């Protein structure tokens, strides 16, 4: 196993009496998209900004690409790309000017600006003032700026907050593109759908503490074993047959529509097997799986939106 790109161990950060981050430890591996998920105020941004070297943790150690973000901040900044939450640029800076300025700041020969703008769909906007861009265009520009130095690790903080679903999907595609180029991505989000669709691994954080870390689907398996099958059949023997399915929890029906609730990974296979063995004819078949949202609810006792 190679050394993780980011190693955070036992960091703590307080603002006065408020404990923003409390004993957070996590590793981010080379080439993965790692998501820090949790509600607003959970400590996501503080954790990320400590890793970026913008904030200094009170306790604990951080290594990014083998560097100490506090001591080696200038060295580190050459090798990472950062997109900050709620960042702005000068209102009247033009898109190409921002790219040109950023390109001049790095020692390394940067990625070609125009090519980046092309990839991010901003080439037609290159002469537009920052203030005239839409929310999605601003975010794409910030992604371009985060990629200008061809960084090894890219940090994206609440990248798609405030964007419409279409713009959000476009941004997800871009982030997958970053990973495809061999970069490591560390992002934060409070959107469970985003974490589930985009991240290879996630850490759930609340009240400044990490609750669990794993691949999204494994978190679901571990914390939410419930499986539900919705089907429709007119077969009168069906109910009797269903009762023999292992790990069945409940059967409810509304006319010919039947809901089978069970638990464990094997449950759905068992239902299918039961249908085929008993030659039950179904006109509808649908499975409902728990999501990260359910995992969050299970782990914290409340929805992420509360």
């Amino acid at each position, binding site marked *: 196993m190679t050394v993780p790109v980011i190693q955070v161990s036992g960091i703590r950060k307080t603002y006065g009496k408020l404990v923003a981050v409390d004993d957070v430890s996590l590793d981010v591996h080379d080439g993965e998209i790692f998501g820090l998920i949790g509600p607003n105020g959970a400590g996501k941004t503080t954790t990320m900004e400590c890793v*970026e070297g*913008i904030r200094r943790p009170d306790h604990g150690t951080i290594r990014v690409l083998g560097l100490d973000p506090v001591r080696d901040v*200038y060295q580190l*900044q*050459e090798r990472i790309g*950062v997109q*900050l939450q*709620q*960042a*702005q*640029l*000068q209102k*009247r*800076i033009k898109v190409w*000017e921002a790219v*040109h*300025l*950023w390109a*001049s*700041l*790095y*020692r390394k020969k940067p990625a070609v600006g125009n090519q980046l703008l092309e990839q991010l769909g901003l080439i037609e906007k290159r002469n537009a*003032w920052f203030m005239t861009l839409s929310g999605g265009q601003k975010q794409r520009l910030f992604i371009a700026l985060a990629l200008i130095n061809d960084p090894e690790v890219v940090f994206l903080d609440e990248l798609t907050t405030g964007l419409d679903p279409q713009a959000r999907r476009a941004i997800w595609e871009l982030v997958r593109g970053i990973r495809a180029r061999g970069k490591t991505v560390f992002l934060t989000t409070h959107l469970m759908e985003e974490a589930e669709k985009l991240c290879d691994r996630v850490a759930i954080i609340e009240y400044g503490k990490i609750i669990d870390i794993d691949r999204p689907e494994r978190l679901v398996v571990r914390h939410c074993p419930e499986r539900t099958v919705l089907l429709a059949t007119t077969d009168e023997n069906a109910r009797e047959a269903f009762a023999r399915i292992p790990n069945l929890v409940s059967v409810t029906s509304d006319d010919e529509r039947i809901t089978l609730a069970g638990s464990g990974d094997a449950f759905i296979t068992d239902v299918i097997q039961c249908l085929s063995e008993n030659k039950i004819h179904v006109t509808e078949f649908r499975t409902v799986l728990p999501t990260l949202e359910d995992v969050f609810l299970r782990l914290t006792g409340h929805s992420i939106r509360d």
Partner: protein
Amino acid sequence: MLSLRGLPELTWLEIKIFLREPMGALGTIFIPVLTFLILGRMGVGRIANASQSVGALFGAGGVPVLVSLLIANSAVLSLVTIISIYREGGILKRLRATPLRPQTILSAHVIVKLLLTAVTMTLMVLAGKRYYTAGPEVPLFSFAIALLIATWSILSIGFIVASIVPTARFAQPVGALVLYPMIGLSGLFVPLTSFPPGMRAVAKVLPMTYAVSLLQGIWRGEGWMAHGGDVLGLFVAFLVCTSISARVFRWE
């Protein structure tokens, strides 16, 4: 390591951005020039340059020095406002997350403001030729250099104000509250010797006092050597203020 990488790019960019803001450019360049012209039309220029009555009312080169200080102040206020807007908007924080160093960001703004001061100054000299009959004894070039040194020093007070004002809305009034009384205490209107000892002591530590002494002296045609103490005072003020603001500066 003192790196100023990106300084030319950032400076040039900030000049362009400044010029794109019509109100900002208008306010900082044309309004002082206009004030100067109106004052000139009203005949203040002749009074101020008539050497006999000058001492009583203004001191030598009264109006030109006063207007120059107003130019310097407006440049400083403009710096304070921009820095606080940049802070409030998260622009400073975004710049800080790049290899751009703090000193580079501040230097770029200082250069822009000094250029602005020089441009305004030049415009005023051109526009004021008709009303302010500056004799051949007034060394305009030296006066311009003196004004740039004074502005540079006063800008460092601007750093402190910019470092501590909570929001951009307070920047302009707090800055004005700090800067304009300093002109009153500078000895421009009333000679320092007629101040009570306490006020004289305060005036002694304010850079504006040295700025006035330097500008008046140069205007009168005195040499730089005679005003080495003023230049030194302005330089010390710059060092002190810059090191204070380096400690209290907030990026967000």
